[in-house]
């Protein structure tokens, strides 16, 4: 017999976890969902964000989320540069399918190895007022270290959604996703727009990274567990749909939390793969797909 409060707590924890997943997945929802660039190095950039938050937090005592926010311009520039290389080497020559994938795989690997060489494989963590402490409503517990990332993530997702749907540049990004040639005929430069969008996607990784290290300690190879998760979220949500991505993130978070509570934490990593395979097999366009 499953007790009501255990079940409720698992669902609430899953909602909070899923909200955080949205922050990690939103960068991929832009780069993969809108631009069709299979950036499997995205979680590696998130881990870099975590380490920046860690360094700034321990050296200067700054708030981790603020540190993540301050790092976004640098991430934007790095992302734009990575897209430049990607465009020149693969997209222009039409080799993005094989070589482009292997390229991002190599980038992911280099980031991970450099972090291991510099910081070792020890777990790192940050300290802030909200990394300990819990809000309780009756039998429902809301740990602050989950609640803060949840709130920040909703703010981030909302901001990106507003940006993509309301501003000129945001609409241009969506136009690139829909019809590149038509955009070119309108006199816009798709490469510049994609470069900007890719930078934007990588910039979100700085904030997601700071949230990741608030939730729990981080070491360089943690990022790999997120590859399956965020691709499952973006595919389930439907390519290019930000709202769909957010709902899919919540679904994955809740399912993972239920599996952790009732089956065992060591089974949680398999959930994302199950969701991904089911989506690909049953409904490849996702819940809110653009096709």
């Amino acid at each position, binding site marked *: 017999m499953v007790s009501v409060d255990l079940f409720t707590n698992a669902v609430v924890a899953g909602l909070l976890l899923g909200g955080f997943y949205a922050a990690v997945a939103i960068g991929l929802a832009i780069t993969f969902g809108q631009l069709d660039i299979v950036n499997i190095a995205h979680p590696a950039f998130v881990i870099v964000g975590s380490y920046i938050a860690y360094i700034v937090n321990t050296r200067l005592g700054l708030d981790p989320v603020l540190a993540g926010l301050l790092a976004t311009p640098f991430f934007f520039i790095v992302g734009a540069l990575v897209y430049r290389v990607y465009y020149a080497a693969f997209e222009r020559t039409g080799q993005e399918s094989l*070589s482009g*994938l292997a390229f991002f795989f190599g980038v992911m690997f280099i980031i991970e190895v450099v972090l291991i060489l510099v910081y070792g494989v020890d777990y790192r963590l940050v300290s802030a007022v909200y990394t300990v402490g819990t809000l309780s409503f009756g039998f429902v517990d809301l740990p602050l270290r989950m609640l803060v990332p949840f709130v920040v993530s909703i703010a981030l997702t909302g901001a990106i959604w507003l940006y993509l749907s309301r501003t000129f540049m945001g609409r241009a990004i969506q136009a690139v996703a829909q019809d590149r040639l038509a955009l070119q005929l309108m006199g816009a430069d798709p490469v510049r727009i994609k470069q900007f969008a890719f930078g934007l996607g990588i910039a979100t990784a700085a904030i997601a990274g700071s949230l990741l290290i608030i939730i729990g300690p981080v070491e360089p190879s943690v990022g790999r567990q997120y590859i*399956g998760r965020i691709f499952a979220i973006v*595919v389930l949500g439907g390519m290019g749909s930000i709202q769909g991505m957010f709902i899919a993130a919540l679904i994955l978070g809740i399912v993972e939390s239920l599996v952790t509570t009732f089956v065992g934490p060591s089974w949680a990593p398999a959930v994302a793969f199950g969701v991904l395979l089911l989506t*690909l097999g049953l409904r490849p366009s996702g819940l809110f797909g653009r096709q």
Partner: protein
Amino acid sequence: MKPAVFWSSLVAALIAGLVFTEVGQNDYYFNAAYVVLQALIMAVAWNILGGFTGYVNFGSAGFFAVGAYTTIALNKAFGLPLPLLIAAAALVCGLIGLGVGYLTLRLKGVYFAIATLAMAIVIETLVNNWAYVGGAKGSYMLTPETHLWFDSYIKMLFMVMLALALASVAVSRALSSSRLGRGLAAIRDDEVAAECSGVPTLRLKLVSTTVMGAMMGVAGAPYPFFVTFVDPVSAFNLFIAVNSIAMPMIGGTAHWSGPVLGALLVGTAQELITVTISSELNVLLVGIMLVLFITLAPQGIVGLARKYLGRRLR
């Protein structure tokens, strides 16, 4: 390469290996050669799908580890001899390759790549939770007493690996130069056009994922006897996956000789760097070489050689 030249060089390599086991004294050389040959099989296997058809497999380490764990499980349960263990690993991994391919190959190649990556993580989760083969703690493997007519067990293992590597090269060459290989090349160049010309694309892709999986299982099957201690972290090491992508990419993916060349060069360089400098630097170097080769020389060493030597010959 003419068939006669190809087959006689395979036989020559086998004989050279046998002579080496009689002459060689230091076991380190056999250890190092084993590692290079293991990487060579992985690279050749990856190239059967990645190079010939253009579908990227990120989950090489998963197939490799399934091969290793098949050995552990069957050895613990029935104490089977090594050749049977290798055959069983080939069967299991071939079926996994077929299954993953069947589920995802109908979609865009991107999804196949992501699915293989996720598959490796899921299989790792399964193994972590499977107490019979040691779970997350890992399991020990006793080195068998018998080693045929060789002086030591590692020498025998080296010869086994050499024979397997030569066999995989032969299979890869046979695939690439056959009717099937031309079908695979057609898929790589333009899948829609291939389908329209009557190439049974799905069936060919399934054949190549199955062969790839089986070969990677074969590479992993003797691994527990080689290291004598296997845990999920070492068996599912990302480095195995990176190596099996980097070696064909550096050697050249379009031709069967590319991964062989890449594996021999990169593998030997890795052994030298690990001994003389450090193993971490070696790992970093492979990543950097992979990215540099993909961006600057997408055809690999074989492509570069064709470009420059071909010009001189003309």
